[in-house]
C-alpha cells in the first residue's frame, strides 16, 4: 500500500480512535480486562474489546459505577488480580525505560525530589501479577522514554525465582506500538502509526530497542469498529468519561 493511501485513510479516523483500536487488538482473547482510573482511551479499548468478543470478555472500569463490578472495596482489584482473574491491565508512567521499568513517583534524588508525580498507585503489584500489562502513554518524547527511570515504581523484569506471573506485554504511544520480550528484557518496535516513521520514533525515544528491517504501519481501525466506537462504546464511555466522550465522539452523558 503506497504511503499516500495510508494518509488518505488516516483522515477518516481520529488519533484517539487509532489508539483505541491498537489497544483493543492487544486485548484479543482476554477473559477479563480491568482499567484503572482516569484512563479514557484504555477504557474505550476495553469496552470495544468486550463488544467485539460478544460477551466472552468482561470489563471492569474503575471509577465507573455501571462498569465496575467490585463489591469488596478498594482491595478487590488487587485480590482479583492475585487470584489470576484479570487477564489484562493498563499502566502508564511519568518515565518509562528500555527495561520497561516505570516511574510514577518523581524525578530527582529520592526522597529529595525535584518533580513529584502523584505516586505509584497499585503498579508495584499489578505489574507483577497481571499476565498482559499494556503500557500506554500518549506522549512519546525523550522526557518520558528514558534510558533509566529516576525511581522504579514497578520493575519491568524480575530475577529468576521471583513470583511473577505478570509483566509488560506491549507499549503503545502516539507514535508507535512496541512489543516487549521478557526473555531479552527489551522492547522491539512492532508498528508505527500512520503519519509517522521509524525514524520519528528513534528520534523521540531515549532508550535502546530492537527493530526489524522494515517496520509495518499500524493497522487503522476498520469501519465497523469505528461505527461501534462512535455509537454504543461512546455511550457506555460517557458515564465515566463525559468530557472525553463529548470531545472525541460528540456524545453527551445520559442524565
Amino acid at each position, binding site marked *: 500500500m503506497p504511503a499516500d493511501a495510508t494518509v488518505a485513510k488516516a483522515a477518516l479516523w481520529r488519533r484517539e480512535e487509532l489508539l483505541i483500536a491498537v489497544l483493543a487488538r492487544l486485548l484479543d482473547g482476554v477473559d477479563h480486562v480491568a482499567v484503572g*482510573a482516569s484512563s479514557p482511551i484504555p477504557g474505550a479499548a476495553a469496552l470495544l474489546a468486550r463488544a467485539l468478543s460478544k460477551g466472552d470478555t468482561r470489563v471492569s472500569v474503575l471509577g465507573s459505577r455501571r462498569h465496575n463490578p*467490585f463489591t*469488596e472495596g*478498594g482491595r478487590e482489584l488487587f485480590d482479583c488480580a492475585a487470584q489470576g482473574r484479570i487477564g489484562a491491565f493498563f499502566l502508564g508512567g511519568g518515565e518509562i525505560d528500555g527495561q520497561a521499568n516505570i516511574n510514577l*513517583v518523581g524525578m530527582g534524588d529520592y526522597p529529595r525530589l525535584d518533580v*513529584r508525580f502523584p505516586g*505509584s498507585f497499585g503498579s*508495584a*503489584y499489578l505489574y507483577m501479577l497481571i499476565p498482559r500489562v499494556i503500557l500506554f502513554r500518549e506522549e512519546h518524547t525523550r522526557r518520558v522514554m528514558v534510558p533509566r527511570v529516576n525511581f522504579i515504581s514497578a520493575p519491568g523484569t524480575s*530475577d529468576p525465582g521471583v513470583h511473577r506471573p505478570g509483566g509488560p506485554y506491549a507499549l503503545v504511544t502516539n507514535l508507535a506500538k512496541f512489543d516487549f520480550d521478557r526473555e531479552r528484557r527489551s522492547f522491539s518496535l512492532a508498528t508505527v502509526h500512520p503519519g509517522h516513521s521509524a525514524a520519528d520514533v528513534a528520534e523521540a525515544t531515549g532508550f535502546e530497542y530492537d527493530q526489524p528491517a522494515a517496520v509495518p504501519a499500524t493497522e487503522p481501525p476498520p469501519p465497523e469498529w469505528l461505527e461501534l466506537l462512535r455509537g454504543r462504546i461512546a455511550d457506555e464511555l460517557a458515564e465515566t468519561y463525559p468530557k472525553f466522550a463529548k470531545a472525541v465522539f460528540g456524545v453527551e452523558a445520559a442524565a
Partner: protein
Amino acid sequence: MAATQFIDLAELADRIPDGAFLALPPDYSNVPMAMTHALLRRPARDMRLLCVPTSGIQADLLIGAGCVAAIECAAVSLGEQGPAPRFTNAVVNGSLKFVDSTCPAIHAALQASEKGLPFMPLRGILGSDILANRPDWKVIDNPFAEEKDPIVLLPAIRPDFAVFHARWADRQGNVWIGRRRELMTMAHAARRSFVTVEAVFDGDLLAEDELAAGTIPGIYVDAVALAPRGAWPMGLADLYAPDVAHLADYAKLARSDAGFREYLAQNHLEPAHAG
C-alpha cells in the same frame, strides 16, 4: 466499645487531637470533607495521615493549611483535575515527611490490624524502589516453597482514627456504607472511628439483609455527627456527584501559596487563630 455517641461536628473534630494518626478514605469513597473543614478551622496540627490508599483534595487541603506532619500514601492526586498542588509543593520543598507505598500494601497492612496480626505477606513489589525505601518492610523466603521464593511482609498499620462520611447512621451507631467496603476495613483496623452522616436512619440498619449487608456495626463506631452534604465538594455514592467546577477552581488556585490562601478565605476555612 461502649455505646456510640452522637455529638455535633465541631465537637467531633475537636476530639481528634493534634498529632493523631488518621486513616483517610480515597476520593471515590465517602470523603469526610465537612469534618476536614472543621479540622482546618481549628486548626489541627501535626496530623499523621494514612491514605487508604490514595487521597485528593482532603489531604491536599490539610497539607496546604499546615495541619500535617507526615503522610503515607500510594498516591495523592486530584484525578482528572491534575496533580495535587499542595502535596506536590510540600514534597518538593521538603516540608512534608512522606512515605511512598502502593495500594495493595496499604489495604493488606490494614487487614493485618483487622485480624490482630503483627504482619501480612504480599506478593509483587520485589524490585520496586518503594520496597528499597521501606526499612519497615521485610523480605523473607516463603517457608512453604520448595525453592527460593522471596515474599514481602508488611507490618500491620493501626490508625488512631478512621474518619469518613456516610449516608446514614441509626440510633445504635450502625453506619451504612453500601459497597464502599474499604471503610469497613478502616473501621475494623483503627482504634476509633468518627463518622459524619447525611442523616439519622429511623430504624435498625441491621434488621434486614438488604441494608445490613452494607452496614458497619456500631461496635466499631465511636462517635457520629450530622453533616448534610458532608462530602462536598466530593460526591457521595448514589446521592450526589462531585462538584467538578469547584474542584477545578481549587486545582487552579492551589497552584500558588497566595491562591491557596484565597481559596481558604473564599470558603471560610481560615484558622480561627492564624498563629
